[in-house]
């Protein structure tokens, strides 16, 4: 199995741990991962707020670069997924705009024909890798640990990659496959305010606390999220509360790749859990695996 990997800017900085864990589990799943050569920022929510042509062009450039490789393009970042998928939809439904985008691409010596298949990581694992294959590689199943699947908003909507828009199930099914017990809570795809993390920090923190409170009352040992930005946002919010009051009652927040990595047999990486959750660290089930933050 081979795929092209589009990291997105966050995977190389604040979500570096996501990339590390993703590459690690890919090796275990015998997926050959090739980072898209000379990829650029997809534009995310920022550029489309200012200039539609630029937003579509910067996203399309990545697709144009990927096209010649004839491989599926996988990205762990839901926001990047939306930017890239949006371009594909334009190429399907709006030939005039598509032609204009190709004009801009042409100034950069590229062209896009609309043939690249884009997946977000969760979708790729569910559809192309399959739960059976993941199950076959598990060495340390979660043994009924209660894991709260926090999807976040942009992986569920508007392009769900085949999952149900109102009541997503992919992550729940993955948790079950890993041996855990998915926890149901009302805010599982509620926005955490990631887009406002820098510009309206207090608002984003409050949105995170709502979600963390809901998860806490539902009772979870772990939180998993497929979005690196959500992970960072939730961790920051949890951290802010922690410094002010008593020890952090929030369960550890892992990203999708980290959770899977926990169940595969890899280098002893319990340092992360030891650092922030010594109580859980002592538990053999999840003390093996897991990456550094």
């Amino acid at each position: 199995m081979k795929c092209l990997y589009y990291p997105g800017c966050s995977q190389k900085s604040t979500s570096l741990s996501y990339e590390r864990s993703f590459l690690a589990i890919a090796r275990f799943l015998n997926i050959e991962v090739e980072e898209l050569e000379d990829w650029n920022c997809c534009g995310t929510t920022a550029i489309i707020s200012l200039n539609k042509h630029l937003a579509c062009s910067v996203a399309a450039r990545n697709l144009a670069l990927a096209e010649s490789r004839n491989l599926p393009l996988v990205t762990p970042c839901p926001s990047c997924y939306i930017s890239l998928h949006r371009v594909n939809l334009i190429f399907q439904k709006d030939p005039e705009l598509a032609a204009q985008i190709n004009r801009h691409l042409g100034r950069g010596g590229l062209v896009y024909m609309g043939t690249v298949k884009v997946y977000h990581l969760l979708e790729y694992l569910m559809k192309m890798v399959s739960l059976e294959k993941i199950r076959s590689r598990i060495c340390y199943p979660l043994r009924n640990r209660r894991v709260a699947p926090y999807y976040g908003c942009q992986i569920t909507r508007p392009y769900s990659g085949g999952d149900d828009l109102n009541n997503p199930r992919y992550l729940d099914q993955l948790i079950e496959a890993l041996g855990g017990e998915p926890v149901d809570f009302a805010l599982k795809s509620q926005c955490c305010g990631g887009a406002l993390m820098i510009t309206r920090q207090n608002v984003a923190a409050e949105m995170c606390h709502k979600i963390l409170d809901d998860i806490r009352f539902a009772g979870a040992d772990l939180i998993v999220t497929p979005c690196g930005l959500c992970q960072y946002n939730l961790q920051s919010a949890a951290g802010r509360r922690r410094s002010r009051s008593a020890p952090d009652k929030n369960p550890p927040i892992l990203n999708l790749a980290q959770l899977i990595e926990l169940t595969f047999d890899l280098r002893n990486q319990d340092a992360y859990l030891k650092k922030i959750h010594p109580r859980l660290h002592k538990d053999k089930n999840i003390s093996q695996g897991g990456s550094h933050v």
Partner: protein
Amino acid sequence: MSNRIGVYVCHCGSNIAGKIDVQAVANSAKLLPEVKVSRDYVFMCSEPGQQLILDDIRKYDLNRIVVAACSPLMHEKTFRDVVVQGGLNPYLVNIANIREHCSWVTEDPDRATEKARALIAAAVAKVRFLKPLKQTRVIVNQSILVVGGGISGIQAALQCADSGFKVYLVEREQSIGGHMAMLDKTFPTLDCSACILTPKMVSVGKHPNIHLMTYSEVEKVSGFVGNFKIRVRRKATYVDFDKCTGCGICQDKCPVKTGNAFELNKTHRKAIYTLFPQAVPNKPVIDPEHCIHFTQNKCGACQKLCPKQAIDFAQQDVLEDIQVGAIIVTTGHQVFDSRKMPAYGYGKLSDVYNALEFERMVNSGGFTQGKIITSGGKAPERVGIIHCVGSRDQRHNDYCSQICCMYALKFAHLVRDHTGAHVYNFYIDIRCVGKGYEEFYDRVLSEGVFFIRGKVASITRPTGKTGSNGQLNVLVEDTLAGIVRRIPLDMVILANGIEAKPDSREVARIFGISTNKNGFFLEQHPKLNPFGTHDPCVFIAGTCAGPKDIPHSVAQASAAAAAAITLLEKATIPIESYTARVMEELCAGCQTCIRTCPYDAIKYDPDKKAPHIDEGLCRGCGTCASACPSGAIETHNFTDRQIMEEIQAILS
């Protein structure tokens, strides 16, 4: 050939004349072969317009007429009647549609005029080769079939039966009554539903002219207009209704308990059961999926205890064939499944009810004996009612279900009246169009119900700090006050809409009628014939034809009944004249036509070694004519020669 053709170009006011140069077109028609007279006139369908044709037929001894006007669907009959008056066969008039097919759809006047010229030339070319056709009439069978025993079916059946006709009323469930039997009170009068329905049900049960077939379904409809052969499957009840007295001992003693669908599974019933106390007929049936005798070959208590030995486990389904002249379809509706709105938590959260569930709750015969109580067993203090659940929604049903606003108001009134609780109605619009409906709204307003204009986004039962007392939280924007509100409630009732039954398309196919995109049966004309279908002997009424309240259902049912009665009283009905004809000398006997006929109208005649087309069954669709590899079949007045002449005329 020596035809004498009259061409009449209608202005249709400015509908045609505003785009097409009608005079020029009439003038050029005069130059067409065999055209003796060509006129234009402002309204051909008017009396003077018709008189023009009549006068010309006499004056010029015309034998063929072409009218260039609106769609034949509008006035073909008018002009056919005119030429009959003038002594000609009605099938010798040909209509050229220069309105819907020309002036209304072409932007450029010059191009429209050219097109009109071509259409008229084609019509003239065809009319030269049209042959007079005979109009056969068949006798109409003097019985009527009513399918579906809800209030619409009951009304239609009673009306037809009272007029002296024999009525077969086929109902799928074991009792007639339909959804109306489940209701508690009806708006706006707050009449008890059962009290107004059951007298009619009893009348049906007792009527000498009504042959009631419950627990039965129509399996097949064959035959032709006025002469339908209906195959009805009488499902096995395992109870001999002739012996059963309805004493109820079997139901008392049956050990099985399973979900009671009439109470929407909020309580149980036995494996041998009647639907509700006032059922007609009031005889129980056995549910073989849950009866221990059928599943495990044990028990048999009912059989042992029945004083009349009415239990017969060996009973089989019976197929009964009946013949009728007209069919009235009144199969009703189903309700929207609120689980399709996951944000409302229906099916997951307790105390969130669908409308019918609440109807059963507040009904004294229902699963709480008429007490309005929460899942905790106490009377609620705060109740919310959400309008437009599943309706006016592009993701589900885009139409308005018509009855929900009124029954939501009814619920608001009942809750206030029975419990004194605070009631909140969450709406987008309040639709009260019927007689007494707006007044009812005013009454409910004055009873102190809170009306919040806003569609509820979500219902949750929060835990911990954010919730309180385990109440349901409803999140809604009060659009009129301009604030977003979170309102704690003890109970929420969803005013879910109504939709076509899941098998409506299959049912439509059985009766040869069509459905619209939402699965409701299609009427012949939405304004002028809402109870007829394109089949002159099949009628529709009630919610199967679209969402409506009880008065409209009853009115439509009576209209359908009246139309059916009119049909039967005429005693004969004309059958389709545009039938197909086999030219036996060309037939090779391949039987392709027999296989392709969608109406089973062709049978093989072994003596003639050729197909025989039953003119009664034939609908003139033309499938056999096009399928025949030898070109041995032609459809009257749509022959190859006629059509080729049309095409030639257009191209030249």
